[in-house]
């Protein structure tokens, strides 16, 4: 059974009253949902709150899911909308800022040093993007969603996602250019 078919089967079981199926859905998707929330909100605590809200929404509204799109796509739409809500609340309470997200030390990580060193800069640049551009870049470039899937998740036409990704990357490059000297621009390995 594919992941998508497994997800649909789990949703059906859950809607039919099998709560263990909900557990499985949470465990299967919690890391990806959290990663999206973290990139959207930047703070770990806020991301964890948003992750919780996402699954609470899933718990309460799973019966509204129609298997026309992959379950994960529907879940990402819920995730992004929850993040937008959190961002709106943050904007209403500008003084209620949480500590910034920093990489947790992970001695097992085997990334190149340059990649690790870049992360804070890239995170800062990503945070400068508007919410809609950031969502598009996060889904397409970080989560690897196709433009079509991202369009469904964001509930906008494919062309709009494409434009947001394109412009988001351009703004990101500009932000990075402002953060470091021109001769030190990061390039793809």
């Amino acid at each position, binding site marked *: 059974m594919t992941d998508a078919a497994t997800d649909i089967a789990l949703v059906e079981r859950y809607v039919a009253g099998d*709560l*263990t199926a*909900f*557990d499985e859905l*949470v*465990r299967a998707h*919690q*890391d990806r949902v*959290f*990663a999206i929330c973290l*990139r959207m909100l930047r703070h*770990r*605590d806020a991301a*964890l709150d948003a*992750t*919780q809200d996402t*699954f*609470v929404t899933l*718990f309460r509204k799973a019966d509204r899911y129609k298997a026309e799109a992959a379950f994960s796509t529907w879940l990402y739409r819920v995730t992004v909308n929850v993040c937008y809500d959190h961002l709106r609340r943050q904007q209403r309470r500008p003084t209620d800022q*949480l*500590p910034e*997200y*920093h*990489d*947790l*030390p*992970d001695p*097992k*990580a085997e*990334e190149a040093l340059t*990649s*690790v060193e*870049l*992360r804070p*800069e*890239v*995170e800062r*640049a*990503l945070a400068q993007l508007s919410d809609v551009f950031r969502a598009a*870049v996060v889904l397409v*470039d*970080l989560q*690897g969603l196709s433009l079509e899937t991202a369009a469904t998740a964001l509930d906008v036409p494919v062309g709009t996602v*494409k*434009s947001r*990704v*394109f412009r*988001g*990357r*351009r703004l*990101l*490059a*500009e932000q*990075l*250019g402002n953060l470091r000297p021109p001769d030190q*621009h*990061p*390039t*793809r*390995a």
Partner: protein
Amino acid sequence: MTVHDHDLDLIMAIALGGLRGEESSGAAAEIAGCERCTADLAAQRTALGALAALIDDPGARLTELEARRLHQVLNDRLGHTVTAAPPPVKRAAAAAAGRGRRFNWAPLATVAAIFLAVVVGGNAIRSLTAGSDDSAGGDTAADAPTSADADGTDERRVSASTSTVAAERQIVAEATATTAAAAEGGAFADRPSREEVSVGALTELRERIETMAIPSIATDATSEDSELAVTAEETMGPDAFGPAPIEEPCIGAASVFLAAPAESVVLGTIDVADLGTTVVTVNVMVDGAVRILLHDPVSCTVVAEVP
């Protein structure tokens, strides 16, 4: 649609390296004639290269503690159990605290065993000669304070959530076996008496630890652990702490009580005024705040939090 917009697909395809052979060279020639397209292509490549640093970033995954916290909150909010992996009890953390320079209990345990033999032997002799049933010290594990004893003190916090209680019940169950084993071995029941400390002294300890970085109580048995041990000894006195009869269940109880701190270690047991003997856990929260909990030495239930 402008010419530049028209080339958006092409620029994105080139940036992603999705074109090959003639298609690629043709696209490159087309882009070369458009100054803004060339700049956009460079920007796309720069952004993609930078974003690659964030793909598969281990820091963007839930830690075990965060996952537990997520499941715990979902349990609370949804009223049903989201099963999670077994609590990630920090064996290494507890062990590290025990291996610290000032918390190496092996020699003390030997002394305690000798002491126990002398006291128990002496009692047996006294019982035989005087008919007395006076016990050695009278401070047995069964006499230790419970969460029920602790009600009514300002600085004490007791978890009220049903799921937390359930989780603590499980922890208590786990603790029972360990405690029984500890009691059998006499590791806690007949320890030498210590001077009681005030909660205020523990507050000072909490404030001092708070000035230390989180890695200072990290799980490995490094010199940083000794730093914690030395701070505890400097603040509370050299004989304030004794060995904890149970560690892992107390770390688990602290994790449930505090909704998953970033780090937790057991400092040992300490005699606190009005509370009696308690197990002390030092917990560093995700935001860097330090919270010290006092646990029942038998059940590990949190009986008080140091203000």
